[in-house]
């Protein structure tokens, strides 16, 4: 069977079945051999059994770790996608610092829990610098807070 040319996309089940047949054919005689016979055959073929065993164990451990970390990998990919999208995004915020401050003040009125949290952070709303106001609004926009407020207003 020419596995390299198999049309995997169209016939995945057939290919897997054929692979299983190959594995069965190879492994059946091997399973019937004693440990000593396997070792003798390995040495006869010029291989070091201990080294081969260590290599196989290493491969299996990598495969197990790879499986266990599938969620970690997926989260890393999601993080990279979001960080890139965040860099590309243009925040649709008011043009002037005064208007941005007014918008943040409106957000705090409409969502007192955010107002309380921001006040806890800075003690007084007036202490926020223009840069603080702008970056806080950018974060609230990314978190969907500004859209939620807009939707609330539209529905009223």
């Amino acid at each position, binding site marked *: 069977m020419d596995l390299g040319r198999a049309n995997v996309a169209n016939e995945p089940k057939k290919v897997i079945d054929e692979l299983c047949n190959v594995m069965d054919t190879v492994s059946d005689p091997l399973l019937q051999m004693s440990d000593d016979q396997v070792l003798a055959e390995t040495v006869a073929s010029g291989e070091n059994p201990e080294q081969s065993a260590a290599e196989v164990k290493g491969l299996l451990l990598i495969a197990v770790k790879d499986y266990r*970390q*599938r969620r970690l990998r997926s*989260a890393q990919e999601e993080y990279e996608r979001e*960080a890139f999208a965040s860099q590309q995004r243009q925040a649709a915020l008011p043009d002037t610092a005064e208007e941005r401050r007014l918008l943040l003040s409106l957000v705090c009125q409409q*969502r007192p*829990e955010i107002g309380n949290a921001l006040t806890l952070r800075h003690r007084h709303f007036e202490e926020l610098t223009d840069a*603080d106001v702008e970056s806080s609004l950018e*974060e*609230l926009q990314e*978190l969907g807070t500004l859209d939620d407020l807009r939707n609330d207003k539209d529905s009223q």
Partner: protein
Amino acid sequence: MANRYRSAQTLFEELGISEPEDIQLEAIAQYCRASVRYKALEGCEARITGYGDRAIISVNSSSRRQRQRFSIGHELGHWMCDQGSISFSCAEKIFATEWDNSNPERRANRYAVDLLLPDPMFRPLAKGRDITFATVRDLADRFQTSLIATAIRLVETGWLPCMIVCNERGRRRWFFRDPDVQLWPLDQPGSGTIAYDLLRGADHVETPTPVCADGWIDHKDARRYELQEDSFKFPIPNCPDLVLSLLWWKDEQQLLDLDEHEES
């Protein structure tokens, strides 16, 4: 609103993390729906804004990697431990001094230690090592985290009888001790200690070095014993005269004698 708290250990099990190199903080935070962003920040090392089930952790892009990692762990601690919409802005001073009071900052610091220096990974690497800042620096490099957090974890591991004390001129900020050490440090280190000299302006003192225990320990028999002191200045913005000291009973006789004394 559902409780979003998950211990560091639970996160490690869910994400298959078993070695220090696997502790990818950006991915762990993202898994907890807190996205990390690096940006220029003024007046703080990191901050977090949380709304609904999502948060953004902003980290100072110009800080050292070890500092950034501790910042992420600390802010994730806020996200895990403080419910509802949150907003915290955290300066370096908090990471160095907020270890004793029961408040959100201490909780976040403790969470960061558990996340960055998990006991099952840390203990085997700390075993058999001297209790010095050279050891702490080596372990901090391996775990890519801050010196203070690593030193606290080393002391708490309880491998050898020891203590870490943070002083500034005029008062003790905090201390941690190995669970088996039942002695208390003095409010201020006495003359004859390295920390005493450093707090009074000495620039460099050769450490670690043996010192008489009565300069450090509040006990009537302390003058009969000796301990190993490793101290250095740890200046940070708004706290220019912090001194960190690792105290190690290389000869455990003092502790054994005191145990006997207590029992008799």
